[in-house]
């Protein structure tokens, strides 16, 4: 079971109060992009064992989207943060580093 805290309203609940929105920080490839880039944008996803970034929505609560950094192996949640960013904030990176010293942010 995952226990998530919504950074918008501060409520903590288990995962059934939320809705998973898939991998976070995707770069959109739209009109004018190559077929390969568009295909990868639509279909290719990371599926790591370990540190992962996801979009979640506070479905039954305030209704807002946000980001979560968590471990897919242990379900440990490193932190949740605003949806209004395309990069992982420093304080989340630090929280991950504290628990997973070997982890390096993807480029």
């Amino acid at each position, binding site marked *: 079971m995952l226990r998530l805290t919504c950074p918008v309203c501060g409520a903590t*609940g288990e995962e059934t109060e939320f809705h998973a929105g898939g991998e976070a920080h995707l770069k959109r490839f739209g009109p004018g992009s190559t077929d390969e880039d568009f295909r990868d944008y639509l279909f290719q996803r990371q599926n790591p064992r370990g540190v992962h970034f996801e979009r979640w929505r506070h479905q039954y609560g305030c209704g807002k989207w946000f980001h979560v950094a968590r471990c897919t192996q242990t379900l440990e949640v490193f932190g949740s943060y605003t949806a209004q960013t395309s990069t992982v904030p420093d304080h989340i990176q630090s929280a991950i580093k504290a628990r997973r010293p070997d982890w390096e942010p993807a480029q």
Partner: protein
Amino acid sequence: MFEPRTALQGAHFSGDITVTDAGLVGMIAIRGSLTDPALCAAVAEVTGHPVPATRKMSGDATDGLAWMSADELMLFCAYGDAPTVAARLVDALGDVHSMVSVLSDARAVIRLHGDVVREVLAKGAPVDLAPDQFAQGDIRRSRLGQVAVAFWMTGADSAELVCFRSVAGFVFEWLSTASQSGSAVGYFATPRR
């Protein structure tokens, strides 16, 4: 003209707690930026309630103003007053970017009363209902069973709950089932040995 009726038509259940249709309740959704001082001033002036902080509520379903999200409030008032109160809100808000809509007939309000009211809610909502974590003045939007609800305490042994009208029957039956006589868990209300 039609005659207003609630989804539950006065339903009442009595078990470990009582579950009761609250009857016709005026409900007005107010959307806009809750950090906008102009919006807060206009809402406070018309409703008589200060704009509540995150996950807080002023008053109750008889006369209350509830936080719903970072950009949404719910005003509770007398059913018959809702249209005029909404019109006054629209006037007071003026050019403030906002939306006011009367939702009285789109929602249902249920009153819960009894010693184990916290336990009954805790059976279906992923919410910490310990008295020091969820007190009068707090509101929580969450789920009960499989559907969206919002609830708040109105006293030590009473709570109110609002849900979509379309699921009112389900929620009523869910609460009745979860409070069948003899089904109390004894976690919050009964002293543990």
